C-alpha cells in the first residue's frame, strides 16, 4: 500500500501540491486526474522518491521514503515499474536491450532466461517482432508499449503510468488501456495512472483522485464521478467529453432551446 500524508511541494514561488493526502490500496488501479499543470506528474514522482516533498510524507508498504537511505530507496524502487510520458527508452539500445536492461542489473538470470523474459514481455505488449529495432524506428504508441514491457520485466508490485495515452490516436490509446487493464488483472499489480483522458479513466480505473488548484479536490470510485455534484469536477469531466467528441457534452448542444 502507498500512503501519502499532507504532501506539500513548491518550485520557487509556485505551489504545485498543497496538503495532499490519500492512500493507494493494494491491487487497485487509481487514476490521478486533473488539468495540465495541476501537479499530477509531480505527485507521481513523489510516490517513487524521484522528488522530495517540502512537507508531508510518502510511505510505501509502511516505509516512509523520507527516512530511508538512498540505498534503501533504490531497493524500494525495484518494486515499481514506471511508464514515463515519452517512454524514456534508452535510445542507444534496441527495444530488446531496453527490456533486458533492468533484468541485467536486478534479476538473477542467465542470458537465456533474460532473453526468454524479454520475448515474453514484448509478446505481452503485442510487439514480439520489434526486439532488434531502436526506439527511433518505432511509432509513439510502439515506444510506449516497449517502455511498458520494460516496466513489467521485473514483475513489479506497483506500476506507475504517466500520461500513457497522451499524443496517441484513439485506437492506439484503446490498445494501451486494454494492456493496462490486462496487466492489472493478470499480474495483480497496484496501478497508478496519471492522465487527463477521462475515457481511459472510465475504462481502466477503480478509483480516481482529482487534483485542482494544487489540492486533492475530489476522490472516489469511477462510478461516483458522474454522480458527483461537485461543479469543478463536473466541468473537468464535461470538458474532457467535449474534447473527445461526445455531442451530449457539447455546451451549445445541451443548451439548445426545446
Amino acid at each position, binding site marked *: 500500500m502507498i500512503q501519502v500524508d499532507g504532501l506539500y511541494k513548491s518550485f520557487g514561488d509556485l505551489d504545485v501540491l498543497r496538503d495532499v493526502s490519500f492512500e493507494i490500496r493494494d491491487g487497485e488501479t487509481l487514476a490521478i486526474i486533473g488539468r495540465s499543470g495541476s501537479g499530477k506528474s509531480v505527485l507521481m*514522482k513523489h510516490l*517513487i522518491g*524521484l522528488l522530495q516533498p517540502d512537507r508531508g510524507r510518502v510511505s510505501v508498504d509502511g516505509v516512509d521514503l523520507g527516512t530511508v537511505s*538512498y540505498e534503501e530507496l*533504490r*531497493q524500494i*524502487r*525495484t518494486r*515499481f515499474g*514506471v511508464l*514515463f*510520458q*515519452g517512454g*524514456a*527508452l*534508452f*535510445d542507444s539500445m534496441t527495444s530488446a536491450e531496453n527490456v533486458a*536492461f*533492468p533484468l541485467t*542489473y*536486478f534479476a538473477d538470470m542467465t542470458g537465456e532466461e533474460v532473453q526468454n523474459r524479454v520475448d515474453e514481455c514484448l509478446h505481452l505488449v503485442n510487439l514480439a517482432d520489434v526486439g532488434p529495432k531502436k526506439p527511433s524506428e518505432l511509432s509513439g504508441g510502439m515506444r510506449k508499449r516497449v517502455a511498458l514491457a520494460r516496466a513489467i520485466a521485473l514483475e513489479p508490485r506497483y506500476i506507475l503510468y504517466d500520461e500513457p495515452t497522451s499524443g496517441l490516436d484513439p485506437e492506439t490509446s484503446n490498445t494501451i488501456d486494454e494492456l493496462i487493464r490486462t496487466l492489472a488483472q493478470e499480474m495483480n499489480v497496484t496501478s497508478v495512472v496519471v492522465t487527463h483522458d477521462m475515457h481511459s479513466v472510465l475504462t481502466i480505473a477503480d478509483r480516481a483522485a482529482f487534483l485542482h488548484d494544487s489540492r486533492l479536490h475530489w476522490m472516489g470510485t469511477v462510478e461516483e464521478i458522474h454522480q458527483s455534484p461537485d461543479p469543478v469536477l463536473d466541468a473537468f469531466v464535461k470538458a474532457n467529453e467535449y474534447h473527445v467528441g461526445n455531442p451530449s457534452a457539447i455546451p451549445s448542444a445541451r443548451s439548445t432551446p426545446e
Partner: protein
Amino acid sequence: MLDRLLSPVQTLGKFALLLARAFSSIDEIGTYWKNFIDQMVRIGIDSIPIVALSSAFSGAVLTVQTAYQLETSFIPNSIIGSIVVPSMMLELAAVITGFILAGRVGARIAAELGTMRVSEQIDALEAMGLNSISYLILPRVLAGVIMFPVLYVAACLIGISGGVAIGHFGGFLSAQEFLDGARQFFKPFDPFFGLIKSVTFGFIITAVACYKGYFTTGGAEGVGDATTEAAVQSCVFILIADLILAMLLL
C-alpha cells in the same frame, strides 16, 4: 543581488557534491564495467584519429616555425629538435589535445546526458533502482582520466614524428639532427609533467561536461546551452589549470 553573488558558490557546491556522490560509489564500477569499457573506447580510442591529425600538424608547423626563427649559421640545426620536443611534451600535446577533446568529448557527453535528462531517461534509471550517477558519471570521468594520458602519449609521439618528417622532407634538418637535439636537452620530468596535465585536463573535460549534462533543464534549448557551456567552460578551465600547473610544478 545576493543570489547572483552566491550563484558561483552554489554551482561549485553542486559540482562538488555530484562528484563526491560519483566517487563515493566507486566500488560499484564493477557493476557498470561494460559501460566503463564502452566509455574508454568512445572517449579514448575513437578520439585517436583527430588527436593524431592535430598533433602531427602541430609538430610539423612548430618545426617549420622554429627553423624559420633560428635561420642563422651560428645555431646548429639540432637546436630545432631541442625546442620542438620539449614544447610538444610540456605544452602542445596536452593543451591542443585538451581543446580538441573539449569539443569532441565534452560536447558529446553534455549533449548525451542532457538529452537523457530532458527525455526522462535519467529518471527512468533512478526509477528502476539504479544509481544514475554511478552509472552515467563515474564511468565517463574515470574513462577520461585514464584515456587522456594515453591520448597525450600518442599526441607526443605523432607530433614529434610530424616534426621529424617535415624537418627531413622540408630540408630543414635531418632526422638524426632532430633526435640528437631532442636527446641533448631531454628532461625526464617533461613527459611526466605532460602526463600530470593530461590527467587534469581529462578530469576537467569529463567532469564539467557531466555536470552540465546531468543538470540540464529546458528541453532542446537547454541541451544546446549545456553542450556549448561544457565545451567553452572546459577550454577556460584548461587554460587556468595549465597556468596553475606550470607555476606550481616548473
